[in-house]
């Protein structure tokens, strides 16, 4: 086994993969949120559609998209592998566990929150990514991506699913953001409190902006 394989398959290596891919997905969220937030300009989706078109046609973005998909897949597969291997490390479970005495519920539920996010991701990709990439609805000019959004979010069921997805995302990030830095060995009295504050702010703000989109469209604030 080469030293690279040996390192990345160790318990610390697997965690490092989670941290690095997790941070790259956080960077993606920032871009995704920034572009989608264009709908709040309330200009009939004009700016948003232009931004979406730029993202769809820019070569650099398309190449980065491959990396993004790899990041998602590695994060999910590595997470599932860690969950399975960690669960096996305690074959006989405790009868009584007082988890709230020593840790937050969401830090103990990263696998569950991640699984909820995976379900949400499949629904989300089906709603927009599949429609824009694998059908000619958008490219033929039949509909804009903004119109597709307004149609999806006219129905209350997707709105509820998206809000629940954003809540799962918020708690997943609340632990994941600062945890990634700890895993990479970045823990210092000087800047760890700063990382934790930025992490908490990011975890609340970004999902809040995302959740506001379907709600605003459903209520007709954005048309």
């Amino acid at each position, binding site marked *: 086994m080469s*030293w690279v394989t*040996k*390192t990345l398959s*160790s*318990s*610390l290596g*697997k*965690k*490092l993969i989670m941290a690095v891919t997790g941070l790259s997905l956080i960077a993606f969220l920032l871009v995704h949120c920034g572009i989608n937030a264009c709908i709040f300009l309330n200009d009939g989706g004009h700016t948003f559609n232009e931004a979406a078109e730029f993202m769809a046609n820019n070569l650099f973005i398309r190449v980065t998209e491959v990396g993004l998909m790899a990041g998602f897949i590695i994060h999910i597969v590595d997470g599932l592998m*860690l969950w399975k*291997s*960690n669960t*096996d*490390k*305690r*074959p*006989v*479970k*405790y*009868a*009584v*566990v*007082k*988890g709230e*005495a*020593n*840790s*937050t519920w969401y*830090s*103990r539920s*990263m696998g569950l929150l991640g699984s909820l996010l995976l379900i949400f991701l499949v629904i989300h990709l089906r709603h927009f990514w599949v429609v824009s990439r694998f059908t000619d609805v958008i490219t033929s000019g039949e509909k804009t991506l903004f119109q597709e959004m307004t149609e999806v979010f006219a129905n209350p069921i997707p709105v509820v699913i998206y809000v629940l997805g954003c809540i799962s995302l918020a708690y997943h990030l609340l*632990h994941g953001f*600062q*945890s990634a830095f*700890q*895993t*990479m*060995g*970045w*823990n210092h009295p000087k800047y760890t409190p700063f990382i934790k504050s930025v992490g908490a702010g990011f975890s609340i703000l970004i999902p809040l902006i995302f959740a506001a989109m379907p709600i605003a469209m459903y209520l007709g604030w954005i048309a």
Partner: protein
Amino acid sequence: MNLSLKVWRQKNANSEGKFQQYDVQGISEDMSFLEMFDVLNERLINEGESPVAFDHDCREGICGMCSMYINGEPHGPNKGVTTCQLHMRSFKSGDTITVEPWRAKAFPIVKDLAVNRSAFDRIIAAGGYVSVNTGNAQDANSLPIPKDNADDAFMAAACIGCGACVAACKNASAMLFTSAKISQLALLPQGQAERTMRAEKMVAQMDVEGFGACTNTGACEAECPKGISLENIARMNREYYGAVLSSK
């Protein structure tokens, strides 16, 4: 105090275990948790039953032998204490207390509440030592050590290897223990000679023993009777990544 105990009884590593209920009466609130078990065991012996096996030694919180998982927490509900320092005044008369052994694949049960923690010894044996001859104690000023490093090394060295970190962790991870042992040597000049090899070998041994990976929940730090900090795990991660990149 009168208490009801639900205690895990298991004859040996290979047998099936189960909870057994015991009612204990006339317990003084000044007794330690282990002394309460002594009272129970004396009664069981007098009744011709097998006493409850549990690990203990110094009974003053420094040896790291006691290891009970009490009402869902290692070493019970109080922070910064081992089971031997947990007193019955922390409970109310009439309470039902569930007592389980440390549960981890890497800590097989020997009998009842006693588990085999020799996996920790093997992690230490893999690299948690200084093999170079450091000679006699030198004049303090001939080997300058920054105060912060000395303090951090001392704090890491406070680990008594009881295994509460493993017991508390949802993944039965031994990273707090291993990182404390790596840290105490990595921070001092005497530990530099084997620094690279130490991080690699101890982490590899930790994985071989069957401990889980870290989810950074912080449960280990919260339950550690010696308050070993999560900063040590971050340091171990740095030591390990640095070691795999620089070793030949």
